[in-house]
């Protein structure tokens, strides 16, 4: 009996020494390399929707994902959301017909229209108007009351091509006989309006010029933001950022998309999507609505 006991103990001891894992690990030889397979083109052509860098990339995805889902459902084909870092890159994408539909910023349309015939499709309507503003914001702790008080301070622009985010501010300085290089201590680009707002709220910038729509949306979503920033200037109305299509888009597709967007507010799901975007509905718009922008752009000479 004692022999059996000692045998048992030996077995247990050996078992305890065995490796702890009960499963064998997979083995992969990392030196075996193959060229990456090219992605096979999908059988169904995706609708490529571009959104310019008005918001940060993640912000754009958050805001437009419902819309892309709606469009995919309505069109019965997958919708890809495409973004680029700068407005210039985005315009380039539209010019090369790498998108079918684009939500673009005002000046980008103006430039694109001029340069390669970017076409207006529709524009958002908010409170019966298709306009927006450039708003000058400072941290709530700042004593500045106007642009003049921002002399020698740090100023945040959004994108070099942004109307509300740069060009309008430059125009204001021009009216004062100043240039940003001399007026401000330092300027930098945030490449999106929501990041420009954050920069001011965090005190990284002493002031910024931002898109009123983005600011409204940010204040609505994050009420405590109002305690951290203050609006010190409010521009006149300018044409709202439109929805455009590349000139090469087939007319049938263009009409289909236009009708779809125009009818969105009549659809229950569409209404929900529109509300999430902060829009009442899409409407048709004339090229002339952007003349005010054109004037100021020409006045500043940016892009020429």
């Amino acid at each position, binding site marked *: *009996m*004692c*022999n059996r006991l*000692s045998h048992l103990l030996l077995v247990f001891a050996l078992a305890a020494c065995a490796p702890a894992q009960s*499963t064998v*690990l*997979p*083995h*992969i*030889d*990392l*030196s*075996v*390399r*193959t*060229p*990456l397979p090219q*992605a096979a083109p999908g059988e169904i052509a995706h609708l490529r929707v571009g959104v310019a*860098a008005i918001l*940060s*990339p*993640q912000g*754009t*995805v958050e805001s437009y994902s419902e819309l892309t889902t709606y469009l995919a459902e309505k069109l019965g084909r997958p919708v890809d959301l*495409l*973004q*680029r*870092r700068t407005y210039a890159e985005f315009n380039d994408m539209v010019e090369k017909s790498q998108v079918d539909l684009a939500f673009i910023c005002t000046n980008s349309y103006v430039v694109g229209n001029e340069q390669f015939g970017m076409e207006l499709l529709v524009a958002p309507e908010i409170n019966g108007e298709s306009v927006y503003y450039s708003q000058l914001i400072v941290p709530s702790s700042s004593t500045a009351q106007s642009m003049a008080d921002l002399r020698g301070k740090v100023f945040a622009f959004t994108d070099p091509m942004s109307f509300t985010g740069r060009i309008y501010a430059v125009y204001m300085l021009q009216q004062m006989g100043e240039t940003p290089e001399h007026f401000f201590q330092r300027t930098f680009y945030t490449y999106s309006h929501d990041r420009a707002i954050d920069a001011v709220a965090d005190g990284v910038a002493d002031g910024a010029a931002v898109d009123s729509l983005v600011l409204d949306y940010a204040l609505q979503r994050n009420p405590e933001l109002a305690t951290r920033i203050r609006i010190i200037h409010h521009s006149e109305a300018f044409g709202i950022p439109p929805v455009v299509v590349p000139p090469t888009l087939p007319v049938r597709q263009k009409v289909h998309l236009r009708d779809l967007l125009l009818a969105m507010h009549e659809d229950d799901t569409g209404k929900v999507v529109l509300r999430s975007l902060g829009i009442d509905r899409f409407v048709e718009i004339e090229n002339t609505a952007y003349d005010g922008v054109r004037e100021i752009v020409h006045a500043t000479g940016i892009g020429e």
Partner: protein
Amino acid sequence: MSTHNTSLNTPLSVAPFPSRRLNRWAEMVWRVAGSVDVRTKILGMVLALTTALGLAVTLQVRAVMTSVFAEELESRSVSVASDLASRSIDPILLNDTYTLHQLLRETVNNHPDALYAFVLDNNGQVLAHTFGDAGFPAGLLDPALETVTATLHGEIRHWVYTSNEGTVHEMIAPIMGGGAGVVRLGLTDTRLQAIVNTVTGQMILTTLLVALAGIVAAMLLTWLLTRPILDLVATTKEVGRGDLQARAPHWADDEIGTLADAFNQMVADLDASRRAIAEKEQARFLLLKKLISAQEEERKRIARELHDGVGQMLTSLMVGMRTMQRSDDAALNQERMEELCTTAGETLEQVRVLSRELRPSLLDDLGLAAALERYASEFTRAHAAIAVDLHCDLPGRLPSTIETALYRIVQEAMTNAARHGKATAVSVLVSRRINSVQAIVEDNGAGFNVEAVRRQQSSVGIFGMSERAELLGGALDIESSPEGTTVYVEIPL
């Protein structure tokens, strides 16, 4: 408990286990282990302990280090992967492949344990990777890997695989909740393993050095312990050869020192007792010699006394009787007969005295008390100047050997008092105690130097007294001063 065939008849001296086979092993081990010398035992113990401690500590440290490093690597990798995922969002959404590639490459370069990193979009296509121009390891894109077991840290999955470059830990971090794709970061623990191995090596080296130092210390220790023991053994052998002057050196005040002291004391006692025995031998030899010469002397004396005293008297008796035979004078013969009777009576008396001197029959017949009384009266007759005071408190007879011994001792003591002491009074007290009999003979003589006499062994009488007492298991003491001498004797019953 065991049902083994007990073919062994010898009982085992070491039997701690219930199993007989184990006990036999234990006995064999003990026999081998017990027979090596103390030095080897101590060395062995020190070495075994040091190495065991060193190895145990090394193993434990190694295990702890390995597990701590693994945890640290995991937690750091999780945070790097998480950071990488969040920094990948913009480049992916903006289709900025170059920035994405830069991001991956910098992360891998900055992390010392990172092997590779790559980004998959939400269709599983590789957007960017750090494997360079040689292609991509297809094994990493195997769909079967979806089901591999992984641990979760928040959103990040951690799974492990073996590769040609060792064990790889891969972190899979979803980008923008998985909506934009995943980033996968591969890390090895090779560097950390190397550190663990270096430390292990260092610890083993330290253990060896300490073991070496331990050997030196153990050798010193054994030298300290065995030197006095070996000295003691040598001294024991010397004493065994007969050199009782040999002493063991006292090395330290520890147990061995105590042993050495005890040993030395024993040898000294042995030496003293041998001397005492030799002295006694010597004294007994002398006593024997003197006893034999004394016996001859006594016989000479008796012969002379017989010849001079009794012989003379018998001669004159014979002459008288011859004279009577030749004479016819009846009245003169009657007178002569009277004289002859008187002479014969004196002769008889002399013979009786002589006989009594030799061996008083009183001693055998009536005992010590009676014999002493007769001797005392004869002593007084012989030495008129000395007053004898005798007290005997003896309720009954004693064994004859004791009675004889006490008689001779008292006889000798009193003779000494008369012969040397210039004494005028002698008192004798003999009393029976519960377990012994005591005799005290006191005189007021001039005394003598007891020690000097004893040492010179010149007095057979005194030595004889002591011997008689000691032979019966008793003790004899002599105290002497110019005021007098006292002899104490006590003999147990």
